[in-house]
């Protein structure tokens, strides 16, 4: 895998060099050569333009006091008022803290577990067993969060919930614990259910990366007397590195926009201080109150933070590991 990317990048460099030397005429020549490729990409460029760039027009709303059913020119312009209100609201900071906390937890555990799981699964010899485990582990991915939330609440219930029954019968605790009523448990519960649901699914891509590793490397290391753990450490993990880093950078870009399904469905009134996330906040204080402008201001804030995070992460990895997505 690594070798192919290297080849590709060297080819790119050659093309760039030839482009520079021959200037415009060269470009047209190249364009003519690759016209089918260009043509095929046109619809997707249009698609990206319509769905990703045209909606940016709506960002103007954040600088207005938007009222529905009124034309664009009849709206009242308020400058940065929406942002000022946003940054003065205590709840916004709480929501920001919760969002970042849960997404960092999700990022860390959502990476470590699938990677370990993929490596372990790769070492399994019995093909039938391996396939069965893989299928079973990614099935929860297809279960909707509504159902998962139901399962989790039931399992953690004090009224016959399986976790409490187990802990009590093992004499680890005397009284059932009210898991869902404790704010400090909430982040953990969300992260754990997320890992349970998505681990198997995320594993697939790592398994694919592992399949791409040259078997000769393993053979060579065996000849040199490397044990299985040495092979994992020195061959499998480095072989997956590119995939891991690309996925990591992309998920860092999504850190602030983690959605609100989990928090909305698992939360309750007692844990709102820990379960309120930015999207939920935008829904409640923006959309549900017809404050479209305020909601837009929140989403602009989200996008700006996402872009900053993405570029920072990309830059750091580019410097330290020479891997990057841009």
């Amino acid at each position, binding site marked *: 895998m690594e070798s192919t990317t290297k080849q590709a990048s060297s080819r790119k460099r050659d093309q760039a060099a030839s482009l520079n030397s021959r200037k415009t005429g060269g470009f047209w020549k190249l364009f003519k050569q690759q016209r089918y490729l260009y043509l095929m990409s046109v619809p997707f460029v249009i698609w990206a333009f319509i769905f990703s760039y045209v909606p940016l027009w709506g960002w103007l709303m954040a600088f207005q006091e938007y009222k529905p059913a009124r034309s664009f020119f009849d709206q009242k312009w308020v400058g940065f008022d929406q942002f000022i209100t946003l940054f003065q609201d205590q709840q916004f900071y709480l929501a920001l803290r919760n969002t970042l906390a849960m997404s960092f937890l999700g990022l860390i555990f959502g990476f470590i577990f699938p990677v370990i799981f993929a490596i372990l699964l790769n070492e399994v010899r019995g093909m039938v067993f391996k396939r069965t485990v893989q299928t079973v582990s990614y099935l929860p991915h297809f279960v909707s969060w509504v159902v998962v939330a139901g399962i989790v*609440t039931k399992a953690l219930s004090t009224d016959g919930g399986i976790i409490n029954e187990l802990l009590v019968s093992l004499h680890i605790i005397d009284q059932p614990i009210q898991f869902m009523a404790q704010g400090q448990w909430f982040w953990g519960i969300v992260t754990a259910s997320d890992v349970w649901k998505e681990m198997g699914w995320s594993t697939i891509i790592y398994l694919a990366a592992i399949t791409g590793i040259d078997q000769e490397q393993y053979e060579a290391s065996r000849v040199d007397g490397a044990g299985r753990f040495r092979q994992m450490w020195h061959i499998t993990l480095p072989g997956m590195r590119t995939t891991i880093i690309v996925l990591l950078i992309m998920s860092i870009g999504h850190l602030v926009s983690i959605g609100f399904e989990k928090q909305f469905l698992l939360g309750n009134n007692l844990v709102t201080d820990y379960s309120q996330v930015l999207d939920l906040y935008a829904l409640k204080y923006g959309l549900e109150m017809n404050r479209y402008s305020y909601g837009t201001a929140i989403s602009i804030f989200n996008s700006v933070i996402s872009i900053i995070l993405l570029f920072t992460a990309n830059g750091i990895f580019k410097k330290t590991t020479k891997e990057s997505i841009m």
Partner: protein
Amino acid sequence: MPSKLFRYALAPLVVMSLVTATACGGSDPTEQETSDPSTPITISFFGSDASPTWNNMKDDVGQAITKATNVTINAEYDVSGGGTQKIALMTASGEYPDMIFPKGSITKLVEAGALIDLTDLIDKYGPNIKKVYGDDLSRLKYSKEDPSIYVIPTNAGVGQTTFDAGGGFEVQNAVMKELGYPKIKTVKDFENVLKEYKEKHPTINGQPTIPLSLNADDWKIMITVTNPAFNATGAPDDGEFYINPETYEAQLHYKRPEEKEYFRWLNHMYNEGLLDPETFTQKSDQYMSKIASGRVLGLIDQEWDYQQAENSLKTSGMAERTYGHYPVQLDEKTKDRSFQDIGAPVGYGIGITTSAKDPIRIIKFMDWMASDEAQVLNNWGVEGKQYEVKDGKRVVPAAVQERKVNDNTNFTKESGIGMYNFSVRYGDGVKDPGGNYYTTNFPEQIIAGYTDPEKETLKAYGAKTWKDLFPQKDEFPVKAWGAAYNLPAPDDPNYTVNFQKSQDIVRKRIPEAILASPDQFDKIYDQMIAEISTDDMKKMEAEYTQMIKDTVELWGEAPAAK
């Protein structure tokens, strides 16, 4: 060569156009612009209340309506109830159904200019609507500044005499029977009953007995946790506010010192182990399944909230586990005001949106739904199927009645009775020209609808219906502003944002206070009061006060309620 080039370019385009074609395939070809009642028309509708028994007009009543009017209702109901999110999306996109039941979100629709003024339409095409509503039509005016009529009230009947109670505090009939029907007047009596029975029966059907459970999932926390606080302390229901009957001054009702004592009692119940510790973490379905298992002895809820669980108790042969309603108060000084008169009904209703292609046809349909024929159809069902006429009297056959009581959900789905409240209608206790009641809720029918254990309990208290146990309407004055929760709330952000904030605080702090140790209760509750007494909150209350005053003034111009 060009053909090859063309092919390459075309391939992705074809795929994409296919995708868009399927995505846009939702438009309805049956929609036609005509007021002619003989052409079939489909009217789209959105209802803000969940309606799990809606059967797409495949039921008997629905078929009869389509036959008579050529109208098919394409209805969508909000899943969790409330409709706020859905309606916010509608106003953002500008796409509305033809007819809408917006509940509290009516202000958003009016603000967005989405509802049409029905005043002239009713005047021209609504003889039945005018007949049913009578002189009180002016009460439908939206506000002092905007005297248009935007909705026709559908969830309150005109001339309604309520014959049965569905609220108060509930205790299983089996519990009352075993304890010899003690008097239940105060929360202490209620507590003792639950405690005594629990000590005698630590388990029911093999599972631990739950003396009292509440439903605090999302907005239901208002129904079973915060509303009972004013109900049990002698105040009427005005939503989240308490309105001073003399000065019309509005304040968040949790600020009343009596209510603090009510919550202190709940705190005590929790610390005694009588309140289900999962009260504030369980979801509605968990709450329902606990009730349906028959092991929850007491509730503080409204019947419509736990109805489905009670139906399932009846279906599974545990009728003795159904609940009776008692007007429990914090102490003997106050009276339950559930039945205080709110004057002519105004309230949540159905409006026609600007998206409707043929408002005249729709108002004609709504007018037909207000006719005697349609009201009887909606309330009684189809003649010969769900009811019979004997000597000029409408009678429900025993077999139908039996299903109505014990298999209500399926019965409603098949018959469609009560599912078509699409227009103004008479309430319980009003008789048609033939001397029959419009609705099936009249004393004899209500009593026929009780299960045997319910009848037994009522007999023991010398009552015919649950309502007999409650203080009656003539014990209180008529409320000049109706019921505040029915009025459109102010729409400017100073009100909405601060109101939402107060709700966030209350819904967080009250559970916290109830689940605290008794010595912590005061600290948490007082802190909450401080948090909802800031200047912003006071401004919000002042704005609400003004709205109440305006309403009283607006209605004062109208002929007085009879």
